[in-house]
């Protein structure tokens, strides 16, 4: 398989774009995480995020978050045009710090959850969801 100069350039430009785009999406997510944590360090573990591996319909993807003793959990969809999904704040009478809902995903992407634990530290969990048909309309 041989490439002409023009094809090689096009490929190169495409590859460059591919690397720039996810980076930009991640920057928005990082900003949101910083806003939520106030710049504190985020550790792994202590938070469970349940999401399907493959979602056929991006319009309703069932997800669940659970973190024992958490005061708040924020969910982000890194690849959506607007990454925030929901923030759950648990009150005194919450029997378990867990909640489930249905979300929209624009395409295959990582779903990220950040929890503020009882001792004030933060935990993070993420999961890649493959989306067959995106859920943001056209």
């Amino acid at each position, binding site marked *: 398989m041989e490439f002409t100069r023009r094809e090689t350039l096009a490929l190169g430009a495409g590859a460059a774009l591919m690397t720039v785009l996810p980076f930009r999406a991640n920057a928005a997510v990082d900003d949101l995480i910083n806003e939520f944590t106030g710049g504190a360090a985020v550790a792994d573990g202590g938070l469970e995020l349940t999401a399907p591996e493959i979602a056929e319909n991006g319009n309703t993807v069932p997800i669940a978050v659970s973190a024992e003793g958490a005061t708040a959990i924020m969910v982000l969809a890194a690849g959506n045009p607007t990454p925030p999904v*929901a923030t*759950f704040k648990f009150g005194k009478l919450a*029997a378990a710090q867990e909640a489930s809902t249905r979300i929209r995903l624009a395409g295959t992407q990582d779903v990220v959850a950040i929890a503020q634990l009882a001792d004030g530290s933060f935990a993070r969990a993420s999961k890649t969801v493959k989306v067959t048909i995106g859920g943001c309309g056209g």
Partner: protein
Amino acid sequence: MASGVKPRVKVPKKAAVGEAITIKTLISHKMESGQRKDKSGNIIPRSIINRFTCDFNGENVIDVTLEPAISTNPYLEFQATVPSEGEFKFTWYDDDGSVYDAAKKIAIG
């Protein structure tokens, strides 16, 4: 806004003192994300439910901030402790300022 908004809540009728119960809520709402365009290419303005709260006898159980990435007819499931007999109050806040509410009594037994 949004016509025909109807909240639905599922709470057990009875519980033991201190028991953890699962509450399921659903409200019919189109949750227009503000990303979609109509046939002539104009953006359809955002119209969503942006907040949901659940309280039991005035004490907070959960307070959720909803964003446009929540699906049509937002569904929420969570756990609550029942310290005594009383009433769960559910409130949904719409972008246009409307507030929808529902209440369910629970008995001890």
